């Protein structure tokens, strides 16, 4: 029997590569999505690093919720699985082989995307593959459960494709998968909390970027496992390999579907109650007070972007004319009263204020360099030098700690930026400011 299952697995894998359609949907479409994201998201540095979780999620979602159910329903309608039922082996063992093939197909598509993203856009690869592989496995598991439910509900191929789109499109548009969560309005983020897509993005993004088990995003992983288990239970109970479905299944179907949906609703409510609707909130931040002198001295100032360049521009010390432009005249008093700059401990306040410079940089504000200088001056004026030194070192050394502000319309800044990019730019600004305060970077006279 093991030999038969192994042969079935290998043959299913081989048949997939004999089908032109499977190649297009399995590999060409993921490449197109990668290039599409690369075209749309051009500002991140490195390119696509902060969107990579979304790209992988789309690939896995497409494979598990569109490709797999369509293939299974087409085979069921042709009677392939009816024939398989006559073999002296449990049908779910054969189904497991098909699921495993799908894992391999999705995995190879994701690997192809990693290689191409690195080659075309210079997106870094994870330093350690294990956390990412684990995250990938959890996401595939959850989405394939959803795919099984779609397979069991659809009466034919057109209906399974329609059902698949009903899952795929909302997650792409308002579920934090296609459009990033930080760019969605609050009501969308709340809705996204009820869908597995946003948890998949969070888990894959976190595992890809951080590549350590200690920073593995446990919360989204648990949510996805819960959703996956509920979906497998419902899907396997509902699967019927006969082409014609006897009457009386509808009520039973509704009950099992309700079980699967209960996991989505439970996840959403938990997320809302825990106030985790914003992406990539990290727990257990080490305080800026934990930064010691040795840590500060370990910081280097080589390789920082040029002050007059595209990234993290910083104007020279401002003269009176620059300060007295209409916009800057309004900016300074607003900054002094800006809530995130007043609340929390010194480290968090400094991080919030540096976020403002980062937002101006990322959104390419006309006065980005001047705003950065204003922030630097304001920090020096508002904080004790020792505290400020520790806070800046904390931001430079631990960019992922604490929280960041992703928009500041009350300060006259338009647009919003991805939190991960803000963290990256904040770390650069922190080094630039710290280097000036400690005399490692000369600040030219006005």
């Amino acid at each position, binding site marked *: 029997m093991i030999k038969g299952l192994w042969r079935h697995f290998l043959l299913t894998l081989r*048949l997939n590569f004999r089908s032109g359609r499977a190649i297009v949907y399995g590999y060409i479409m993921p490449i197109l999505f990668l290039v599409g994201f690369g075209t749309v998201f051009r500002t991140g540095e490195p390119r696509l690093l902060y969107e990579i979780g979304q790209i992988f999620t789309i690939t896995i979602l497409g494979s598990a919720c569109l490709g797999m159910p369509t293939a299974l329903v087409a085979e069921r309608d042709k009677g392939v699985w009816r024939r398989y039922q006559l073999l002296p082996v449990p049908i779910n063992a054969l189904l497991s082989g098909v699921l495993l093939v799908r894992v391999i197909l999705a995995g190879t598509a994701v690997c192809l995307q990693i290689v191409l993203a690195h080659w075309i856009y210079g997106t870094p690869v994870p330093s350690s593959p294990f956390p990412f592989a684990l995250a990938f496995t959890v996401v595939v598991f959850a989405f394939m459960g959803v795919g099984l439910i779609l397979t069991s509900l659809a009466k034919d191929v057109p209906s399974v494709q329609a059902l698949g789109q009903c899952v795929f499109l909302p997650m792409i548009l308002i579920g934090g998968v296609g459009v990033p969560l930080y760019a969605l309005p609050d009501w969308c983020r709340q809705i996204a909390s009820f869908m597995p897509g946003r948890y998949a993005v969070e888990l894959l993004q976190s595992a890809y970027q951080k590549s350590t088990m200690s920073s593995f995003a446990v919360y989204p992983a648990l949510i996805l496992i819960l959703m996956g288990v509920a979906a497998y239970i419902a899907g396997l109970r509902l699967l019927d390999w006969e082409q014609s479905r006897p009457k009386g299944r509808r009520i039973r179907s509704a009950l099992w579907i309700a079980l699967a949906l209960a996991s989505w609703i439970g996840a959403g409510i938990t997320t809302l109650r825990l106030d985790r609707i914003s992406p990539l909130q990290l727990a257990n931040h080490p305080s800026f007070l934990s930064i010691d002198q040795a840590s500060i001295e370990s910081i280097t100032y080589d390789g920082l972007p040029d002050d007059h360049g595209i990234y993290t521009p910083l104007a020279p010390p401002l003269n009176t004319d620059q300060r007295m432009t209409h916009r800057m005249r309004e900016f300074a008093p607003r900054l002094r009263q800006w809530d995130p700059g007043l609340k929390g401990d010194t480290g968090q306040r400094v991080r919030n204020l540096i976020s403002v410079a980062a937002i101006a940089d990322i959104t390419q504000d006309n006065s980005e360099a001047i705003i950065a200088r204003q922030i630097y001056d304001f920090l020096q004026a508002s904080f004790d030098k020792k505290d400020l030194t520790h806070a800046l070192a904390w931001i430079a050394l631990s960019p992922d700690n604490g929280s960041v502000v992703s928009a500041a319309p009350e300060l006259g800044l338009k647009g919003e930026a991805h939190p991960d990019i803000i963290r990256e730019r904040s770390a650069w600004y922190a080094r630039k400011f710290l280097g000036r305060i400690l005399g490692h970077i000369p600040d030219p006279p006005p």
Partner: protein
Amino acid sequence: MAMSTVLSVRNLTKHYGSTGGVSDISFEVDAGEIVGLLGPNGAGKTTTVECILGLRSPDSGQIRVNGIDARTDPDGVRRITGALLQSTALQDTMSPRDAVRLFGSFYSPAPDVAQNLARFGILPQADVPFQHLSGGQRQRLALALAFLHNPGLVILDEPSAGLDPAARRDLLDCIVAEKKRNRAILLCTHHIDEAARICDRVIILDSGRLVAQGTPNSLISRSPDTVSIQLRTSSDPDAGDLKSIPGITDIKQANDSFILSSNLPNQSIQGIGILMEKTGNCITELHLQGANLEDAFMELTSKASSPDPAHPSNPEPKDPE
């Protein structure tokens, strides 16, 4: 159960809600015989087959294949049973060689792939994708998969559906050849001539009940002693004159000939001759055909459909032959 009995079905009952299914069916199939399962649409043939193969769970009754209980050990039954079901297919890109190798790998010892393909005449198409095989080649492949592991029992559900006459004849020859290897074969079919040609015994189902079983000849002998006379003459005779001939029970006109039913064939033939002579008409063609399995089938299924409370569900034990 006799030693040679491979399949034994006892009091099988399976209902779908308030309608359909089968009720209290019992029959056996022995090694080295082909048993035809006949019945109109909805008679319960497919339900019976699916219960034997463990695809449906019976409401009650017992099914044993070589002594293995199909309800408690469906995998055990599938291990010694081959099947060709209606509405089954393979993946478009799977070749016959792939299929035979895959299906064979679930049995021990694994059968020889080329030998099995050759046995059913599909070796030349061994590497042709399933989507490019003709209907006959697909059915031959299905047959190869059914007989692949040398099963003691083979169930064939409408194996010749959709085939042209030549492909159908070839397929039936293959089935008869397999019977000679001492296999028990249960053949579900709509084609009564097919059953008459190759079946040793026939079971007739109607509305979920077993209405008759026996050899084709024993079933034919149970139908009324009516002979069909096909008559073509130089000019049309008067239908009233034909009806007055002794023994004639029914007259039908078909194109340029008459089909007469007679329960006294000798007297009817004599009466036709007298009528022709009297009216100056001339016989140009005359065919006589006795009752056949189709007549028996029509007679039995129409009887079963009539509301006759005295009609038994399992009226006749297996013909011992």
